[in-house]
């Protein structure tokens, strides 16, 4: 599948995913990827673990739409997004975005675009366990600003 998204609890193998993404496509000259992992600290506290909740159905649908948008904006051949849900710990892999293209400019941009889009529009919520107790992670204004660079209004951190 040239454009695919997986939402899953299980871990993934970056090397396998990259190989699968470009397999059999000799037009590809560039493969760009991003890997998001769980940090041990966030917003001034140490993090023992993190629970990722999502909106089944909407999660896949929204990310597929983001990939359609990436396809329109950038000259790319294939893209893969994997996002884990459930209980995670520091150093665990959370999210993977990979894109292929003929030359590096397009896949670098598409990869960043997909991450900026996902950060403010994909229905996931993180709850982290700190020494002070469990708390929901706050959305960041800087993520809205990142998406604005691509000309899209994030409208994520706002009051309505």
């Amino acid at each position, binding site marked *: 599948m040239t454009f695919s998204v997986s939402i899953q609890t299980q871990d993934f193998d970056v090397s396998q995913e990259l190989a699968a993404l470009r397999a059999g496509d000799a037009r590809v000259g560039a493969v760009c990827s991003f890997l998001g992992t769980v940090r041990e600290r966030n917003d001034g506290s140490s993090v023992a673990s993190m629970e990722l909740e999502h909106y089944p159905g909407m999660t896949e649908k929204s990310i597929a739409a983001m990939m359609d948008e990436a396809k329109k904006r950038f000259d790319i051949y294939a893209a893969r997004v994997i996002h884990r849900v459930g209980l995670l710990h520091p150093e665990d892999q959370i999210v993977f975005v990979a894109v292929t293209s003929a030359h590096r400019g397009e896949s670098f941009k598409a990869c960043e675009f997909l991450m900026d889009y996902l950060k403010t529009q994909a229905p996931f919520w993180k709850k982290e366990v700190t020494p002070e107790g469990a708390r*929901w992670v706050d959305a960041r204004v800087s993520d809205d600003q990142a998406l604005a660079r691509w000309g899209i209004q994030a409208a994520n951190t706002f009051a309505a």
Partner: protein
Amino acid sequence: MNVTLKYFASIREAIGQGSESVHTQATTLDALRDELIARGGAYAEALARGRAVRTAVNQDLCDGAMALSDGCEVAFFPPVTGG
């Protein structure tokens, strides 16, 4: 009309459930939200005007002006924090 409601994250915790079915007179998402706020208690606090609440109808993000249809799915959730 009949609507399936879904709540996520801190809103789900405050309200105490992730899903419920309602029969409503509301024809827009804003009107439905007002109906829920009018229930008082946890609903009034979690969905209060001025709080950061995002909405989706049939799994597409939308604003309060969105029209509802019989059998649709409406979700209320906090700003997203994935990735």
